[in-house]
């Protein structure tokens, strides 16, 4: 690498950096996405593996040490360029089929794959049979089982006797005998239809049994009439005459109607059950929670409402919407989304870094640095945060050594070639600046009218910093209200700060000339006069706007 570079390239680089600051996602997406992509890939592979410790959890979900080590192995192998298939094959070669959460369809595991479908097929067959049986009864009242002897007689009379009995004259028949004859005719027709293939066996048997039983009843009735000395037709009300045509006309439509309604009922039942069960399932939110919960299961409110998704899912959603808002340059929405993500996942490095970059755009360099540092405490090697840290140090602090350190830590990781290229160029640029001295940068800072420096803590007060205290850096002119002020929550001393026109209390008041510079640590975090337990310090002399390296020491306590 050469340090002497053509002017055009330098300009190109400046443009690159500016582009980076104006639309960081345009300069940095590959790096951020690479990280997310890797995490996503690790998760998707780990989700297919069974944890040897928890045994019923995937490696992605298991909290065990072993699962963590396995996830590290997956990440390492992905970085080494292995495909998900190769990685799965590695685990398979060490633990056998046991390690797969969904077993390969071979050997005994085949049952797991075929079983549910077979069971469903059997279930459907049973349901169909039950429905058909039910429709076959065609509304007939349950009769007592007919006497077998009578049934024999029916069969004999209907089929064998009828050949030599000849046609009977309906004129000479009592209604009940007519009924009997009609039933016999119907039985013979059924037989004929079945033989000629018009009736299925099941239908034929059902109708035959039904009619035979009815005929047996009629015979029993006739016997009773014959035995009684004085037959009284009124007393023995004959059973409902049912001619065959009538029977056919009523049974057929009724059967199809019943079939259709039964089918529709089963379909609706299945669909509604599936729908409501899936609605009342939701991810577990904690140890005390049940897997399901709804009116179906009686375990409290459930249902997948937009707000009751799993926390991880929610964080991912919020981050995505934050990113989208950032790209639209809708800062308010982006800040809201990232802050909400931090409520759910307080250490989330992406949210911290993104907020830091937004702060940087707004000119709050120190707070940006704090936010980026928070991201790095969660994940010291988070590429996006390392990149952002370098940018903040480079742009705001002119701390080229720090920027180079951050970027070199980043370079130690596996980056996409384009990203590695860009970071390398930035490092070179920082080295050049280091050699030249930050004169040009200083001019920029001065023209912007910014005061920069450090706030340190007097040794005697080291233990007196109130927990949860907020540092205020205030520029005043005389005894009037503050001209500009900066609020730095949870400061880590020594704090580096910059106070610029963006920190003015009232827009439009000029931020120039000489000011008094105060620093104050407030327990209650509210701006205002100091209270008991608060710390304060003041710059030794009036400070000119544009001055750099101002030192303020907190040496007073209230």
């Amino acid at each position: 690498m050469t340090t002497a570079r053509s002017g055009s390239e330098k300009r190109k680089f400046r443009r690159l950096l500016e582009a980076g600051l104006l639309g960081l996602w345009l300069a940095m997406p590959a790096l951020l996405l690479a990280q997310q992509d890797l995490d996503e890939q690790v998760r998707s592979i780990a989700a297919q593996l069974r944890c040897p410790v928890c045994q019923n959890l995937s490696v992605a979900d298991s909290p065990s040490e072993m699962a963590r080590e396995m996830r590290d192995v997956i990440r390492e192998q992905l970085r080494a360029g292995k495909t998900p298939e190769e990685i799965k094959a590695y685990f398979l070669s060490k633990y056998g089929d046991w390690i797969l959460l969904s077993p390969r369809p071979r050997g005994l595991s085949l049952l797991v794959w075929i079983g549910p479908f077979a069971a469903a097929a059997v279930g459907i067959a049973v349901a169909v049979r039950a429905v058909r049986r039910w429709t076959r009864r065609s509304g007939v009242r349950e009769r007592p089982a007919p006497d077998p002897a009578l049934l024999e007689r029916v069969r004999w009379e209907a089929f064998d006797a009828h050949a030599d009995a000849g046609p009977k004259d309906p004129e000479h028949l009592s209604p009940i005998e007519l009924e009997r004859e009609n039933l016999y005719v119907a039985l013979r027709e059924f037989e004929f239809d079945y033989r000629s293939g018009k009736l299925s066996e099941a239908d034929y048997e059902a109708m035959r049994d039904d009619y035979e039983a009815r005929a047996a009843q009629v015979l029993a009735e006739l016997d009773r009439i014959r035995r009684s000395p004085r037959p009284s037709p009124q007393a023995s009300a004959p059973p409902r005459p049912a001619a065959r045509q009538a029977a056919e006309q009523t049974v057929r439509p009724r059967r199809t109607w019943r079939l259709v309604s039964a089918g529709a009922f089963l379909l609706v039942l299945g669909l509604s059950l599936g729908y409501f069960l899936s609605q009342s399932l939701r991810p577990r939110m904690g140890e005390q929670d049940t897997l399901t919960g709804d009116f179906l299961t009686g375990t409290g409110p459930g249902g997948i409402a937009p707000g009751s998704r799993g926390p991880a899912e929610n964080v991912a959603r919020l981050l995505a919407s934050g990113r989208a808002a950032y790209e639209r340059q809708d800062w308010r929405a982006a800040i809201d989304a990232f802050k909400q993500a931090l409520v759910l996942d307080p250490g989330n490095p992406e949210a911290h870094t993104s907020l830091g970059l937004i702060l940087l755009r707004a000119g709050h360099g120190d707070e940006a640095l704090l936010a980026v540092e928070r991201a790095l405490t969660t994940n010291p090697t988070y590429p996006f945060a390392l990149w952002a840290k370098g940018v903040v140090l480079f742009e705001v602090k002119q701390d080229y050594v720090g920027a180079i350190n951050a970027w070199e830590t980043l370079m130690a990781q596996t980056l996409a070639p384009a990203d590695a290229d860009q970071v390398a160029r930035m490092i070179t640029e920082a080295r050049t600046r280091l050699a030249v001295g930050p004169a040009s940068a200083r001019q920029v800072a001065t023209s912007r009218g910014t005061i920069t420096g450090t706030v340190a803590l007097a040794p005697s007060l080291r233990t007196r910093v109130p927990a949860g205290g907020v540092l205020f850096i205030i520029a005043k002119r005389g005894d009037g209200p503050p001209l500009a002020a900066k609020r730095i929550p949870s400061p880590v001393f020594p704090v580096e700060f910059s106070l610029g026109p963006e920190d003015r209390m009232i827009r439009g008041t000029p931020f120039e000339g000489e000011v008094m510079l105060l620093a104050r640590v407030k327990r209650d975090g509210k701006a205002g006069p100091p209270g008991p337990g608060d710390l304060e310090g003041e710059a030794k002399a009036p400070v000119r706007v544009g001055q750099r390296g101002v030192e303020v020491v907190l040496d007073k306590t209230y």
Partner: protein
Amino acid sequence: MGSRRLLIRLVGLFVVGGSLIALLAYGFTREPREIPTPLLGKPATPFTLTLFDGRQLSLEELRGKVVFLNFWASWCPPCRAEARTLEAAWQKYKERDVVFLGIDIQDTEEDAKAFLREFGITYPNGRDASGKLAIDYGVWGIPETFIINREGRITYKHVGALGWQTITAKLDEGLQGIVSAREGKGDYRQIR
């Protein structure tokens, strides 16, 4: 006709019901926690281990010798139970072509060293800090022991505490290059 149908139905019922009962019997009589190893007869994964005394030891160096590879942790009771037996076996076999090697997993260095002192272990031991070695060998219940023959193939795996007889029998088999058909099992602890 009717009786034949009845017979068919009965046979069908017996076939379906019987196979279902057989499947359930098979499923319920197996230990679901066990992870059968696919490694028997396969080449042992090479590794380099930093021993507790700071030396580096690689499996490659031990080619031509039978390796008794033991995964353990100081917090696992069965490991304590077998520790003295392992040391005694080492004393018996150290003159022959056998190397004992202990790999401490999921443990702190202090605890591991205290354990080695407590039982007077003299064969080489090292710590698998990243856990990668344990995954390479499909470890799931410690102690786990692998016997690797002179050609570097795994001839035997034992999950759980080892007794004297198993150690001697399997080491002798390893020296002759016999690969066991099945892994052995004793009292073990689930890894963490």
